């Protein structure tokens, strides 16, 4: 009984805020007679979602696949490279400042190049999701490993533990809270990366993911469809964020304040 109550307690405040915002939105559209191609009401967005459900849910599935694979890759590559940078001081000094490029170069600018390198479809979208979400994971992992308690590190040294063993038994568990902070940020960014990647590099028609649906609906002034696709992309982001939180809670809940 405890967990459903905790979940309910954490869900109702944002749910109320969302309801209030949707009501205000609806009211504004009706009161100011805003045309639907400029801003549809939440109700017409819902209607559009219902009408196009099979197409939209299939598109969401495609975007979710690219997001999950891109996020998974950024999690694995980010944790491994953050760990390597921590273990090799020279690499940290030489390479870490360059990883900032991943954060600073606008994805929109490099997305066309990803299409050239990886071709149209899933691979270039996965690459976009991965590139845009990897930096927080690298930074979180590195920060966590750099902040390992000096006393505990000394204890491992006394017991002649090697660097890999110390990383595995001390560094990695110690840095998990910081890694999960990076993963939470990366979860949202991976969805953004996938959608932007799809703007440029996704197939259209029957194989269209959410990003491609958004661009084609925009060209046809189907604003309700755009909103419906954006809402589904946002839900995808929330779901991934929730999943990361759940895994973090399972791993850290028993011993770390951040997950309680």
């Amino acid at each position, binding site marked *: 009984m405890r967990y459903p109550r905790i979940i309910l307690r954490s869900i109702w405040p944002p749910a109320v805020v969302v309801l209030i915002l949707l009501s205000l939105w609806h009211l504004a559209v009706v009161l100011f007679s805003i045309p639907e191609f400029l801003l549809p009401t939440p109700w017409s967005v819902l209607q559009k979602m219902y009408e196009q459900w099979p197409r939209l849910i299939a598109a969401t599935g495609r975007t979710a696949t690219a997001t999950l694979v891109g996020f998974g890759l950024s999690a694995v590559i980010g944790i491994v490279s953050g760990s390597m940078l921590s273990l090799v001081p020279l690499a940290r000094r030489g390479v870490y400042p360059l990883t900032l490029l991943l954060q600073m170069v606008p994805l929109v600018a490099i997305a066309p190049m990803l299409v050239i390198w990886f071709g149209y479809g899933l691979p270039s979208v996965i690459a976009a999701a991965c590139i845009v979400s990897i930096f927080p994971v690298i930074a979180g992992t590195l920060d966590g490993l750099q902040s390992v*308690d000096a*006393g*505990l590190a*000394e*204890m*491992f*040294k*006394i*017991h*002649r*533990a090697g660097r890999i*063993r110390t990383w595995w*038994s*001390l560094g990695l*568990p110690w840095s998990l809270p910081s890694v999960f902070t990076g993963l939470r940020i990366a979860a949202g960014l991976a969805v953004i990366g996938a959608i932007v990647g799809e703007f440029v590099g996704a197939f259209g028609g029957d194989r269209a993911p959410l990003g491609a649906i958004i661009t084609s609906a925009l060209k046809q002034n189907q604003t309700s469809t755009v909103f419906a696709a954006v809402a589904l992309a946002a839900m995808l982001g929330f779901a991934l964020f929730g999943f990361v939180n759940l895994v973090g809670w399972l791993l850290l809940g*028993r*011993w*770390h304040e951040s997950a309680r």
Partner: protein
Amino acid sequence: MTNVHVRLREVEKIFPGGVEAVARMDLDLAPGRVTALLGPTGCGKSTLLRLIGGVELPTAGSIEIEPSPRIGFCFQEPRLLPWRNVRRNVALPLELAHASSEICRREADRRLKMVGLSDAADFLPAALSGGMRMRAAVARAFIADPNLLLLDEPFAALDEVTRLRLDEEVAALVREQSITVLLVTHSIAEAIFLADEVMVLSPRPARIIKRFEIPFGERNAALRGREEFGRLQSEIYEVLLAGMGDAA
């Protein structure tokens, strides 16, 4: 168990920045005996212990430990891994020495029984009191059957009653197993209670001002009430005070 002999000759430790922690120190830790280093805060006694433990390297001089030691370390803080339960924390030194999980578990349970923590084996450190955490740290220090035990103000952060009780337990354990022990402490009473020999150190850089042979055999709570204990305590205090005065 083969007891180890620790021999320091002309050992010097100067940290980067020029801080001289230990100055040309000669020290012998006799096999199977407990030696206490007593000195003011920051005098370099913990550095000396870390030099013997191999955590720091001396700037000059030599440190010989024969035969090759199995070192048990107990720090001022328990240094338990918060994500591991007490049993797995205690077993850590064996795990790092690649012992099988069965041996780790069996030995950890044996050591936890020794320090009276069997019931808390599955608890996380956060669920333990300060005294229980320190007991777990003592159990961990003993798990690899050390022949050299280095104690760095192990109970300094505990309340007086818990500290006295743990002193008694450790005194019994080290005497039972006749381990070579180096204890670093601020407490004169703790040094006399646990050690066979007390060395009073000067303020930094550490040098030995005077050695005291502790004449007591059995260590139990009643020892602290004995007249000789009090007299020795005053005598060491005078030497410590005079040493600090010299530095001033």
